[in-house]
């Protein structure tokens, strides 16, 4: 970076502010995708101050993920800060929805702007703009419709050029604002997907010969396995790499209200603590309701595989827990962090993230469509009234009528002579009057 000469103290201060700005950007973007309405209180100086004088309450898990994504570096020319927002289905298909980027340009502010308060205030305005704009993109509304059965929203943080092709056709790109500093110009942009349709992805011919969900019973992608979760214990030096360059694929699932305290998580520990929830004792595996019928049949296979692969994840079996899972042996590993914090998520599922985007399964909830339960009276009533009731004249069963006929025939046979005499009598009665 070029720019006018800064004293070492100013340079250090600017670097510090840039680092904190980066962290706050991630917090603002990710918190806006939790599916919750933000509300923070204004405070007087006596009540305490916050960075950039904005009530952005840091969430520890996001902070940790940001530190890993930054890896001790700052955004630089050609290495923008990227916050990627993804949508993921229970079938572990994923779709990149948004790319929030803080780009750095060489051009700089030549005016004698002071780091504090001038640059500090400019960064504050940028964060306010980010807060405002995160509410207007389609993913904001989507984040309120998250559910374990439909989709959840995840995020990735990294330094590096993002792949804009993953946003599908006709993505929208917008510039939120910029901060010019004596060293560089930071430009905050967002690119987002406009087509969130349920199209099946184009697959290779090899895939087409197989049914769409051919990976359904792969142990490593089964929800059962994923709920077991895992945390391999990432080495700190390993974690210092940017996420997309890392050989690990890690996922963090969060599923709890924000107001519960988050517990710090040790990456070197095999015990995984929970994002955004208090540390409750883990519940037994049997507690989970399988999302896929008979998925528990796969349990033994999973355990065998886990024993074999020592670096395979081990899990957390808290259904309301954040689970970090890492999958070994994936060449292009990536770190994806779930943001779903809907309190209704009592369990979350995850699986291996495939490279190609897949279609989105949206749960179809038809009115009155349930097959059981007490709330179906209306449905039963409808079915009852759908056709006209049977006529009463058909109420008697045919068996009764047939038995009556048999009895009548027998009585007729028994009285056959009587009938013959009657006929003869008619004949004889008529004979005297005959012309003969």
């Amino acid at each position, binding site marked *: 970076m070029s720019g006018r000469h800064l004293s070492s103290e100013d340079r250090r201060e600017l670097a510090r502010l840039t680092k904190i700005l980066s962290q706050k950007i991630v917090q603002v973007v990710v918190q806006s995708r939790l599916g919750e*309405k*933000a*509300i*923070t*209180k*204004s*405070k*007087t*100086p*006596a*009540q*305490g*101050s*916050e*960075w950039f*004088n*904005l*009530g952005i309450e840091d969430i520890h898990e996001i902070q940790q993920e940001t530190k890993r994504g930054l890896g001790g570096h700052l955004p630089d020319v050609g290495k923008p800060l990227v916050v990627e927002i993804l949508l993921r289905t229970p079938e572990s298909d994923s779709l990149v929805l948004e790319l929030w980027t803080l780009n750095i340009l060489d051009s700089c502010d030549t005016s004698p702007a*002071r780091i*504090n*308060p*001038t640059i*500090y*205030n*400019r960064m504050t*305005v*940028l964060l*306010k*703009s980010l*807060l*405002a*704009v995160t*509410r*207007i993109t389609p993913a*904001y509304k989507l984040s309120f419709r998250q559910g374990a059965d439909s989709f959840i929203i995840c995020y990735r943080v990294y330094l590096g050029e993002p792949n804009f092709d993953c946003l599908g056709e006709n993505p929208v790109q*917008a*510039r*939120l*604002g*910029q*901060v*010019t500093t004596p060293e560089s110009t930071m430009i905050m942009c967002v690119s987002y997907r406009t087509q969130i349709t349920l199209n099946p992805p184009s697959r290779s011919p090899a895939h087409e010969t197989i049914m769409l969900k051919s990976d359904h019973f792969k142990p490593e992608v089964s929800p059962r396995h994923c709920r077991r979760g895992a945390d391999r214990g990432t080495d700190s030096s390993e974690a210092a790499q940017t996420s997309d360059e890392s050989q690990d694929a890690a996922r963090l699932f969060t599923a709890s209200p924000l107001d519960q305290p988050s517990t710090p998580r040790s990456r070197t520990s095999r015990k995984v603590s929970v994002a955004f929830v208090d540390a409750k004792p883990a519940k037994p595996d049997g507690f989970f309701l399988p999302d896929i019928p008979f998925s528990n049949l796969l349990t033994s296979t999973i355990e065998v595989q886990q024993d074999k692969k020592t670096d395979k994840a081990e899990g957390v079996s808290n259904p309301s827990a954040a689970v970090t899972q890492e999958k070994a042996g994936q060449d292009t590993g990536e770190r994806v962090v779930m943001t779903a914090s809907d309190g209704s998520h009592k369990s979350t599922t995850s699986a291996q993230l495939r490279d190609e985007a897949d279609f989105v399964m949206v749960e179809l909830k038809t009115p009155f469509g349930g097959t059981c339960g007490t709330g179906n009276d209306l449905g039963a009533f409808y079915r009852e009234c759908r056709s006209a009731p049977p006529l009463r004249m058909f109420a008697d069963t045919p068996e009764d009528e047939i038995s009556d006929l048999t009895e009548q025939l027998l009585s007729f046979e028994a009285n056959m002579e009587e009938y013959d005499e009657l006929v003869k009598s008619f004949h004889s009665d008529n004979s005297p009057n005959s012309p003969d």
Partner: protein
Amino acid sequence: MTSQTADFKTKPDMNANTQVLELDVEGRQVDEAVLSLFHTLLFHRSTGKFHYKNDDTYAVGTIGFQDVDCDFIDFTYVRCSSDELDRSIKREVSGFCEAIRAPDAPSSGQVALEFYQRKRGRWPFATESIPWEVWTLRINVVSLNNEHERQIWRERVGDSLGERLLHITDTLNRHDYIPSPPNQAEIDLIYDTAYPDVQPFLFKINYSVSAPTNPSATTTIKKLIRDTLALT
């Protein structure tokens, strides 16, 4: 982190940064459309409360914020967590909304949010107000025939507000002119210190409801008048 030193710039730019945004909305959407943009502007143009340690060193409080969902527009905006500021803006904006929704009112009007700073005049002249940023919303009220059209319009106005909001944020980040933080004695010349929880730049809201005219001509005339007044 909190202590900052005042860096007082004596002379504001005489030419206020003037922005005009145009919006087509249904009558019942006027309040929310105006409030969403004005609140966004005031969120950017407010700071935490100052607490002076000495004449030019002060600590700054924190601005809380909250999401607001519109009822008649598919739109969510962020505003300062300050009920008093909210009440104040609503009171100012409601006059315009009532005027433009009046039975015999013309179908368009404009409402402006003007940031200004005061300058103490020499005796016998009073303190003058010098605008440094003016945001004018030209509102055209459309009438819709049925509920289906209302549903479409609900989304369309949401998209339209989103575009305007991006324009606002891009403009606000260009740092054309912002009054510098004042010394303690002059804080009331820059900021409205009446609110207990936030400290917006001095602002006022004014409006006019008129028959449709050429917007650029109107703006030019208003600007001329304003500049003339500012110079006197």
